[in-house]
C-alpha cells in the first residue's frame, strides 16, 4: 500500500495551500483531484480580488492560481489529477479511483498519516418550471465555460440572483460577448457588493428586483428559448398578472453554494448546521481538525466563503498536520497559525465579513462544547 504523510482531497486554493505548508515542513504530501487541471475554481476567477495587500488584493484569481501552482511545484507537492477519492476508511485509508471516465479505471488505496479534506462547495439550484431544460445552469457552470473553456453557454442570458457570484458572472458573461438580458432578484435589495452592482447598472443590464423566474420555456428541441419572470410579494410568492416573457437561451442560477461534505460524513465527523456558511458543515477546532483525530478540513468544505479564506484555512490545516507529525516545533507552528488567524480576521471584516467572523466563532465554540479533543475512535452509527 502506498503510504503518505499527508493526503489532501482537492487541489483548489485550500488544498494547494495546505499541501505547500505541509510540504515546506518536510511532509510527504499527495493532493488528489478529479479534474484535468489543478487550481479548483481559481482559474475561472478572472476578476481582481479584494482584501489587503497581505492577501494580494488587486490580483486576479487566475493569477493567484498560477502562483500557488508554482509554489506547490517548487515545494515538491505531488498532485494526482483525474483521480477521485471514493472512500475514506477507518485507519486513515484513502480509496482513490484513478483514470478518465472513458478509460479503464484503477482503484488504489493509500495509507495516510493525516488527511485534509478540501473538497469545496457545489452550487444551489432554484426550482422553477422547466429548470432541468438544456440552457438552465449554475452561474458557476456558465463562468467555467466562458473563462476556462472559452465557449459561450448561450447568447442571451438571464441571471437569477444578485449576490456577488450573480453580479460578477453577469459582468464576465458580457466580457465574453454574451448579452445579459436580465438580472432577476427576489429580494428588494442587491445581495452583493455595490461596486459590482454598479458595473452591471452602467452596462445597462435590466435589473428586476422583487422578481423571480417562474418558467423556462423550450424550443422545438426543448432547449431554453424564453424565460417567464414575475414580481413577487413580501412572502416571495409570484404575483399573478405581473408575468413578463424574456427571450433568452440561457439561464444562470446564482443562488449560493453549499459545502461538499460527503467525505467528512463518511467518517462520521461531528456536524453542525450553519446558515451563514451554507448548510451542514463538519465541526473543527483552530487547527482545522475535525472531531476525528488526524482528519482536517479547509476552505468551502468547512463553510462557504471565498478563495482567500480558503487559502488561509488551508495553510492552517497544512501547518497543524505537519505539527502533529512533529515536523514543526510547537512554538513555530503556534506562531504561524496565530498570524494566519489574525489575517483571517482581517478578511472577515465589513458588513459581509462580520457575519462570517461570528459564525466561525460559533463553530469553534461548538467544537469545544461537543467534541473537546479530537477522537481517535470512529463511532460507526447503527
Amino acid at each position, binding site marked *: 500500500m502506498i503510504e503518505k504523510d499527508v493526503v489532501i482531497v482537492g487541489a483548489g486554493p485550500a488544498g494547494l495551500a495546505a499541501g505547500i505548508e505541509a510540504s515546506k515542513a518536510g511532509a510527504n504530501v499527495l493532493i488528489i483531484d478529479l479534474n484535468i487541471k489543478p487550481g479548483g475554481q481559481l482559474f475561472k476567477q478572472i476578476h481582481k480580488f479584494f482584501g489587503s495587500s497581505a492577501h494580494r488584493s488587486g490580483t486576479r484569481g487566475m493569477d493567484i492560481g498560477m502562483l500557488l501552482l508554482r509554489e506547490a511545484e517548487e515545494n515538491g507537492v505531488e498532485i494526482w489529477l483525474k483521480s477521485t477519492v471514493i472512500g475514506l476508511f477507518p485507519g486513515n485509508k484513502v480509496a482513490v479511483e484513478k483514470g*478518465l*471516465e472513458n478509460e479503464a479505471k484503477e482503484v488504489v488505496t493509500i495509507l495516510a498519516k493525516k488527511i485534509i479534506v478540501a473538497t469545496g462547495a457545489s452550487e444551489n439550484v432554484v426550482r422553477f418550471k422547466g429548470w432541468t431544460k*438544456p440552457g438552465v445552469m449554475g452561474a458557476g457552470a456558465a463562468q467555467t*465555460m*466562458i473563462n476556462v473553456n472559452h465557449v459561450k*453557454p448561450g447568447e442571451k442570458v438571464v441571471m437569477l440572483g444578485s449576490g456577488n457570484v450573480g453580479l460578477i458572472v453577469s459582468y464576465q458573461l458580457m466580457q465574453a460577448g454574451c448579452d445579459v438580458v436580465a438580472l432577476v432578484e427576489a429580494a428588494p435589495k442587491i445581495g452583493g457588493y455595490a461596486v459590482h452592482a454598479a458595473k452591471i447598472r452602467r452596462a445597462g443590464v435590466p435589473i428586476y428586483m422583487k422578481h423571480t423566474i417562474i418558467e423556462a420555456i423550450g424550443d422545438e*428541441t*426543448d432547449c431554453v428559448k424564453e424565460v417567464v419572470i414575475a414580481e413577487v410579494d413580501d412572502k416571495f410568492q409570484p404575483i399573478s398578472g405581473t408575468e413578463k416573457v424574456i427571450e433568452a437561451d440561457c439561464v444562470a442560477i446564482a443562488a449560493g453554494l453549499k459545502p461538499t461534505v460527503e467525505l467528512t460524513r463518511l467518517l462520521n465527523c461531528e456536524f453542525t448546521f450553519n446558515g451563514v456558511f451554507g448548510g451542514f458543515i463538519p465541526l473543527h477546532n483552530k487547527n482545522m481538525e475535525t472531531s476525528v483525530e488526524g482528519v482536517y478540513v479547509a476552505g468551502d468544505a468547512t463553510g462557504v466563503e471565498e478563495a482567500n479564506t480558503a487559502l488561509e484555512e488551508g495553510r492552517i490545516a497544512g501547518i497543524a498536520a505537519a505539527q502533529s507529525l512533529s515536523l514543526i516545533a510547537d512554538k513555530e507552528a503556534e506562531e504561524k497559525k496565530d498570524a494566519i488567524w489574525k489575517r483571517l480576521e482581517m478578511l472577515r471584516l465589513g458588513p459581509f465579513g462580520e457575519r462570517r467572523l461570528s459564525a466561525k466563532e460559533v463553530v469553534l465554540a461548538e467544537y469545544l462544547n461537543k467534541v473537546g479533543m479530537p477522537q481517535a475512535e470512529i463511532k460507526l452509527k447503527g
Partner: protein
Amino acid sequence: MQTKNKGADTMCLRVENHVILEVDNNVPLVQITVDGKMIAAKEGEPILAALLANGIKINRYTLKKQEPRGLFCGIGQCTDCAMVVDGKPNVRTCITPVRDGMVVETQNGLHKEVERK
C-alpha cells in the same frame, strides 16, 4: 431515438476576443464524431466545450421521461452532461477531454439506445 440537436452549422459560440483573457485561437484542432457527424474540437478541451462551440446543447435524455439534459454544473458534480463516449456510457463530458477520432453519442437513459416498452 434520433437526437434533436440542431447540430454543427447553426452557430459558433467560441469566445475569440477577450479584454482580460488571452484566448489562444491557434490551438491544434482534432476531429470528433457526434451522433455520426464530424465536428472540430480544440485539442485538450472538454468534450462538452467542443459540443457547445458547435451549437450542440443536448447531451442525454432521461431514462423515464426521455427529457433532454445539458450542461448544468460544468465541473463533474451533477452528471447531467453524461454521454456515450467510444461506446462507454455515463461519461461526464465536462471533465473528459476530447481525443482525435473520438466517437461521442447522445445518451438515452443509461445507454446509447433507449429501451422502450
